[in-house]
C-alpha cells in the first residue's frame, strides 16, 4: 500500500475513535452510524463502478434482499439473525451470479439497463409478496443477537459499524493493490490489454459484481437490524441512484472518496428534510454538476490538485 493509503486509514480510525465523544446527542450518533453504513456499501459499489469500470443501477435491490432476509427469515421461519444474514448473502450471490454472467457480455447502456431492470424486479417482488414482506408498508426486523447479547444501544451499534468500516477500508485497499485488484483495474483501463495478458474478463466482471452485491446484501441486513424496520423503498431505484451519486461525488476508484461521498450525501437529505421535493432536485443537480465539473469526484480531484497519489 502507498504511504498515503496508510495515512488515510489512520485518519479514518482516528476520527472514528474520537467521534462518539464529541457528538452531542443520539440524533448525531444515529447520523454517524448511517453514514458509516452507507460508506461501507459505497466502498463495495465503488470497486465495481470506479475500479472495474462497470455500472450498477440496481444495487439497492441487493440491499433489499439482505434486509428482507433478516426480516423475513427470523420472523416467519425462526432463523437466527446471523444465519438469516448468511442466507441473504447466499441468495444475493446466486441471483447476482446468474444475472451477471449473460449481462456482462454487454457494454455501457445495455449493462446499465440490465442492472436497472434487475433492481426494479427485486423491488416489485418485495413490494408484492405482502404475506411474507408486509408489502408496501414494510415489516419489523428482530434485534440482532450474538451469544445472547442483543445489539441494541447506539453505542454498541456505533462500534460494530465503525469496526466494519475500518475492516472494509483495509480490505479494499489490500484488494486494489493485489493481483486480483490489478486485473480489475486493467480491465477498466483496456479490456483488450487485460485479455491478452490472461485476464478472463467475463469471469472477473461477474466476480466483482457478485462481490459488491454480497457486500450490499450484508450491509442491508445490518441496516435492517439497526433500524429495526424495513420497507420496499429501501430497495428502490432512487436509493440505487443515491448510492451511485455517492460513488460519483466522492470519487470513482477512490476508497476514501467513497467515505466522503457517503458522508456528504447521507447528511444532505437530513439537511433537506423540511424541503419536500427539493431533495430530488438537489440530488439531480449534484449528479449533473459533479459529472460535468468534477468528473473524477471530490477526493481524486483534490488529491491531484495537491500533487498526491491515490
Amino acid at each position: 500500500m502507498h504511504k498515503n493509503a496508510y495515512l488515510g486509514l489512520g485518519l479514518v480510525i482516528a476520527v472514528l475513535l474520537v467521534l462518539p465523544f464529541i457528538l452531542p446527542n443520539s440524533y448525531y450518533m444515529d447520523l454517524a452510524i448511517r453514514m458509516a453504513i452507507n460508506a461501507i456499501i459505497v466502498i463495495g459499489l465503488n470497486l465495481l463502478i470506479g475500479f472495474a469500470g462497470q455500472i450498477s443501477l440496481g444495487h439497492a435491490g441487493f440491499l433489499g434482499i439482505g434486509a428482507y432476509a433478516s426480516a423475513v427469515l427470523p420472523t416467519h421461519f425462526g432463523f437466527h439473525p446471523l444465519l438469516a444474514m448468511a442466507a441473504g448473502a447466499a441468495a444475493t450471490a446466486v441471483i447476482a451470479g446468474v444475472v451477471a454472467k449473460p449481462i456482462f457480455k454487454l457494454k455501457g447502456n445495455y449493462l446499465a439497463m440490465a442492472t436497472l431492470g434487475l433492481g426494479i424486479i427485486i423491488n416489485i417482488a418485495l413490494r408484492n409478496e405482502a404475506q411474507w414482506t408486509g408489502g408496501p408498508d414494510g415489516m419489523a426486523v428482530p434485534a440482532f443477537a450474538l451469544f445472547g447479547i442483543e445489539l441494541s444501544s447506539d453505542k454498541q451499534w456505533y462500534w460494530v459499524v465503525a469496526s466494519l468500516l475500518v475492516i472494509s477500508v483495509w480490505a479494499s485497499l489490500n484488494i486494489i493493490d493485489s493481483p486480483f485488484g490489478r486485473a480489475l483495474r486493467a480491465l477498466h483501463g483496456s479490456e483488450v490489454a487485460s485479455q491478452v495478458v490472461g485476464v478472463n474478463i467475463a469471469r472477473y466482471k461477474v466476480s466483482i459484481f457478485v462481490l459488491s452485491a454480497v457486500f450490499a446484501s450484508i450491509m442491508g441486513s445490518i441496516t435492517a437490524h439497526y433500524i429495526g424496520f424495513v420497507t420496499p423503498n429501501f430497495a428502490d431505484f432512487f436509493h440505487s441512484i443515491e448510492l451511485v451519486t455517492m460513488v460519483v461525488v466522492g470519487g470513482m476508484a477512490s476508497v476514501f472518496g467513497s467515505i466522503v461521498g457517503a458522508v456528504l450525501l447521507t447528511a444532505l437529505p437530513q439537511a433537506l428534510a423540511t424541503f419536500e421535493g427539493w431533495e430530488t432536485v438537489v440530488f439531480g443537480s449534484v449528479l449533473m454538476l459533479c459529472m460535468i465539473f468534477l468528473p473524477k469526484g471530490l477526493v481524486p480531484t483534490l488529491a491531484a490538485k495537491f500533487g498526491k497519489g491515490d
Partner: protein
Amino acid sequence: MLSQFLQFLFSGITVGATYALAALGFTLIYNASNVINFAQGEFIMLGGMLAVLFAQMGLPLPIALLLAIVIPALVGIFMEKVAIEPVKGADTVSLIIITIGASLVIRGLIQVWLGKGTFSLPAFSGDEPIHILGATLLPQSLWVLAITSLLVISLWYFFSKTLTGKAMLATSFNRTAAELVGINTNFVLFLSFAMSAGLGAVGGILVTPITMTSYDVGIMLGLKGFVAAVVGGLGNGLGAVLGGLLVGILEAMGAGYISSAYKDAMPFVLILFILFFMPRGLFGGKSTDRV
C-alpha cells in the same frame, strides 16, 4: 375468452403506443449523440402535467395542448445545451448518470411546483366506450393510436424525404463525415432533443385521459420506453415503434393472464430476457471493434 383477449390487446396497444413514442424519442437522441436519455420519461410526464395545468388555468384546450408540447421541447433543448454539450465525448456511464440527474431535477421541480397529486384531462371525444366483440375500447385509445400513427408516418416522411431529416440520419451514421459535408451537427443535436421531448410530451398528453398523470409517472414510462427501444434494436426507428407495441401488449397480457401485481415487472423481465439472448434487439445490427 376472445373478448378477454381483445380487452387485453386493446389496452396493450394503447399503452404500447405511448411506449412507442417514448422509444422513438430515445432512438432519436441515441442516433444523434449516442446518449441514452434517461430523462425521456420526464418529457412524457411534462406533457400530461403541463396540459392539465394550462387547461386548469382556463386556457382553451388546443392552446393548452400546444404549450404542453412546445415547453417540453424547449426543456429538451435546454437540457441538451446545459447538460449534454459541456461533456461531449464523455464515456457512456457518465452520460447516463448526467441524464439521470436531469430527470431527477425535472421531476423534483414539478413535484415542488405542482405537488404530488394525480390529475386527469377530459377525453378528446368523450368517454362512451365502444364495444367490439365483447371487449370495450375507449374512444381515447383510438385517438392515441391515430395520432401516434400519424406521428410515425410523419417522422418516416421527414427522415426519408426532407433534407433536414436526411441530415439527421447522416449525423447518426457518422458524425464527423456529416460535419465534413457541411451539416450543422449541433443543430441536429438540438433538433433531436426537441423532437424527442415533443414526441414524449404528445404521448403523455394522449394517454392522460386514460391513465391519469402525476409528477412521478415519468420514471416507469421512460424506463419501459427504453426497454421498448432496446427490444426493437437501439437506434432503429421501426424497431422502436414495434418494440413499444410489443412491450405494451406483453405487459397487458402478462398482467391479465399471469399476475396483475407484477404488471410493472413484465417489461423488465422482458428486457433481461432480450439482453440475455438477443441484445441487439429485433432489428439491431452487429458491430465489431477495430483493435
